[in-house]
């Protein structure tokens, strides 16, 4: 069966992308199982969805541990181990990354042997809203890489899954998806159907009986304060605020007061500093600064610069 895992962030259309692929495969007469994986509703947090498709009814369940195709809609997730982009990959796992960088760039960067294919959106994007169209690119690309979805089925699936949206939105999605589909013609069908785990030769397990531990150890208690700082919510960000020291009037930290996440602090000079490890990029500070001293930059550009690409 085909085992496809799609990675993105909450709010980027990853759940819908999974369903479009699922629907398209279903239209191609495959038995399908698709589902998203996320906790509570949170924009920006890494999520994934998955699709299984085969000729027989699917009995496998749950997250896909051994994907044949991994689709990454937001390349910044690759830096986040918790996003699990590389979980369970094998030599023949095919990667599709929606990125302006080339396949070679990623192969070198990731140091893996798997086949990596990239495509980007042709237009430069500056607002988070355009990230939805990354999912559209992914849908088209995945469709072609699988090699068993016709253009017509893909189009129909998009119409079906996006039926609640306006016509113009649906048409734009179809346009972007089919463009990606066309661009990857040379890679048609490189994703092969995978087999299940062999009962003859599987990795032996190491079951352990958890030892009894008194409540002093085993109660669900956190005996510390502020441990949430270990969670780097800065990784949710697709846009970042940047303080322009020249323009900043060192007012009474209006930006810091409005920051919901305590991600703006004052340094020894009383100047606002942004804690990029935790800033989620909501940009309230940008909008509220009376001097317009805070500007916006796209995160993936920053990442590129930082890595000296």
């Amino acid at each position, binding site marked *: 069966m085909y085992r496809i895992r799609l990675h993105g962030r909450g709010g980027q259309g990853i759940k819908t992308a999974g369903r479009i692929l699922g629907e398209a495969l279903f239209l191609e007469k495959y038995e399908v199982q698709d589902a998203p994986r996320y906790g509570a509703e949170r924009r920006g947090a890494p999520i994934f969805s998955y699709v299984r498709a085969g000729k027989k009814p699917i009995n496998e369940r749950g997250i896909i541990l051994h994907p044949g195709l991994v689709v990454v809609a937001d390349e910044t997730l690759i830096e986040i181990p918790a996003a699990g982009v590389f979980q369970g990959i094998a030599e023949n796992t095919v990667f599709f990354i929606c990125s302006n960088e080339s396949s070679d760039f990623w192969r070198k960067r990731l140091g893996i042997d798997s086949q990596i294919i990239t495509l980007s959106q042709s237009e430069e994007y500056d607002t988070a809203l355009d990230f939805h169209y990354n999912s559209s690119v992914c849908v088209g690309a995945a469709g072609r890489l699988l090699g068993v979805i016709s253009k017509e089925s893909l189009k129909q699936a998009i119409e079906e899954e996006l039926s609640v949206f306006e016509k113009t939105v649906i048409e734009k999605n179809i346009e972007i998806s089919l463009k990606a589909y066309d661009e990857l013609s040379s890679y048609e069908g490189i994703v092969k159907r995978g087999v299940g785990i062999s009962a003859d030769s599987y990795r032996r397990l190491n079951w352990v009986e958890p030892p009894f531990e008194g409540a002093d150890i085993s109660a669900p208690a*956190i005996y510390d304060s502020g441990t949430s700082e270990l969670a780097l919510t800065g990784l949710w960000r697709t846009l970042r605020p940047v303080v322009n020291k020249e323009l900043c009037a060192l007012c009474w930290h209006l930006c810091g007061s409005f920051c919901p996440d305590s991600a703006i602090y004052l340094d020894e000079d009383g100047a606002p500093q942004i804690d990029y490890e935790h800033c989620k990029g909501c940009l309230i500070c940008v909008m509220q600064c009376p001097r317009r001293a805070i500007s916006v930059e796209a995160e993936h550009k920053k990442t590129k610069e930082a890595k000296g690409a």
Partner: protein
Amino acid sequence: MKRKLLTGNAAAAWGARLANVDYVPAFPITPQTEIIETLAGWFDEGALKGRFVTLDSEHSMVTAAASAAVTGVRVFSATSSQGLLYASEMLYAVSGYRVPWVLVNVSRGLSSPVTLEADHNDIFALRDSGFLQLHASTCQEALDMVLMAYQIAEDVRVRLPVIVNIDGFYLSFTREPVEIPDENKAREFIGEFDAHNISFRANVPLSHASAVLQGSIYSYFRYEHHLAAIQAISVFNESAEKFEKMFNRSYALIESYMADGADYVFIMIGSFATKAKEAVDMLREAGSLTGLLRLRMFRPFPEEEMKKLLKGKKAAAVIDQNLAPGKGGVIYTETAAALCNEKEAPFLISYIGGLGGRDITAEEFYEIEKEMRKAAETKKPPMARLLFSEAELEAVRKLQGIAGVEKKNEQRKN
């Protein structure tokens, strides 16, 4: 020690008093109300020092109880039936807080249809809530088990809340002689409340019972809870040993009444088990080798003890005063699971009796003994049976007549 005639409710209240509880959040419900009224009176007159407060519902009451226990005080509360079920979300939730406290349930049948009489559907509905369960058979046990419950709950190996069950009406409103232990000895038995790691204090931050979003971590917490519940078996035995030394009353996990050397045993829980003792005495007089096994602890289920006591018996009749629709008796099911891989296990026969307070008569015990004999001889145990007579069915028909059941059905046909 003074010996007085006390109702089960009064005995339970005495248990809380002797345990020197700090806090009693309450909510009234039949047939438990006398317990909280008694305690409220003691707080008012200063016999107990702390707080008594009535909450807006049992759900709130259990929340207040557990939160106070998390903060670090000794807590007692009581409820029944519908109230226990209304609180059920919180009963499950707060057992996972891993803090000790004691809740007395005065068991009463569940709606629908609504009733005030006793049975065990309420208490068994919460058997998987994570609370430990002790079941009293006499008013003396009502008091004693509350004391033992505190000791077991607060033991560092357990740290779980306990429900002590006493039957509505048959214990709650029935007076029996009860020896009230000396206050100081009771204090000595239980000791001072020690909050260990979990308490709320300024400058000692604690984020408790936070969300867990991963299966493996959740599994760990839940499994450790289970292991702690299992620890209560040995902790109970230690507590019983200490109790016997101090108060001269002996309590085993499972009371074995004439079961040693018996071929046939009744298996029961709660106050109606004493009726079985009476039946056993008469059956023995008539030459039958019959005994009784009565569970004092239901959670954790004393599996090893049960297997040991049933080994070599020819037949055992489980008399459940509860009924799980679509399955049958709860004690029967759990006992069967304990026995399923055992060699020399007896035939297990299921009886449902005493629902909604319905009596179980001496004759019924004798009939059950006959069926146990037959099962052993023919090697064919009978199907599960509801204890119910022809006369009772006739009575139902009469009532249906008055309720116009036939009339209604005729109307529908026309």
